[in-house]
């Protein structure tokens, strides 16, 4: 079973289309449901990917080892680089920071694209732009959650995109 390769832009386009389909067609009036569906897809993918990428790996002794695996090997397989910064409060919360998140590097969240005549303040425009971008973060959050749950760690994952193109994922382990 040899490896088969696909052009990266196919993956980018698939992501964009997935978010667009769920937000604009399937759950146009209910963005929270669209977000949940996208995150669930990510969960399934993460589950399967973690099965594949932990094959050669010795078993993890604790949560920190599993998170480090996500930061190094798992992230390199997915995005060809490692997580740049990992912080923890040693009480079940981990912050994984990627200084140049691959799937969003080509995305502009500049507010000039939106219709300026409608909205009053600059902050609401920026908020809308950030909200639109955050839809794209549900898929990677789901991937992380799926991978960790397959390693036996139940958690909740959220993402923060405030300093684009850097992106941080916050993992809260359920006790």
């Amino acid at each position: 079973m040899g490896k088969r390769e696909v052009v990266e832009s196919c993956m980018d386009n698939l992501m964009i289309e997935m978010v667009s389909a769920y937000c604009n067609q399937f759950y146009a009036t209910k963005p929270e449901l669209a977000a949940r569906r996208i995150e669930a897809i990510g969960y399934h993918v993460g589950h399967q990917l973690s099965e594949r990428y932990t094959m050669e790996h010795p078993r993890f002794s604790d949560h920190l080892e599993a998170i480090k695996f996500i930061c190094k090997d798992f992230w390199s397989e997915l995005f060809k680089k490692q997580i740049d910064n990992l912080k923890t409060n040693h009480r079940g919360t981990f912050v994984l920071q990627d200084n140049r998140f691959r799937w969003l590097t080509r995305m502009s969240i500049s507010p000039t694209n939106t219709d300026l005549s409608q909205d009053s303040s600059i902050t609401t425009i920026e908020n809308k732009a950030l909200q639109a971008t955050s839809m794209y973060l549900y898929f990677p959050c789901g991937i992380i959650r799926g991978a960790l749950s397959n390693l036996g760690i139940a958690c909740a994952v959220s993402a923060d995109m405030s300093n684009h193109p850097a992106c941080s994922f916050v993992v809260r382990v359920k006790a």
Partner: protein
Amino acid sequence: MIVCIAVVGHQSFTEADDALKLHHIVHCSLDVIDERVNNPKKTGSTLNETYLGLLYPTENYKVYGYLTNTKVKFILVTTHLDVRDADVRNFFRRFHSAYVDAVSNPFHVPGKKITSQTFAERVSTIVKSFGLSSAV
């Protein structure tokens, strides 16, 4: 000769022959695996051997276990008397690879029985070559 291979994640079995006895063997070996796992050991994927010769005075089964990072257990029951360690490890490595490919199927529901035809074929190929390679 391999009599049975079981994949136990959350209840799924493949290729059983004389099902009831083998289910019993597999359940016993699950207990042994749990004992081994709960003793803090820093080894990699464990390969443990449980000899159940005493339970069955007429036939001698050897049972091998393999535990993946995702808490999925593979149990191999064989009647082959002089199995080499390297062969079993090799077998489990190939079986693990086939398992990962089967689970990566988007139509596979995690936790349910694996129904892929390709998986069944690959497993029977691996099983057949197991017997041959260990004959020196």
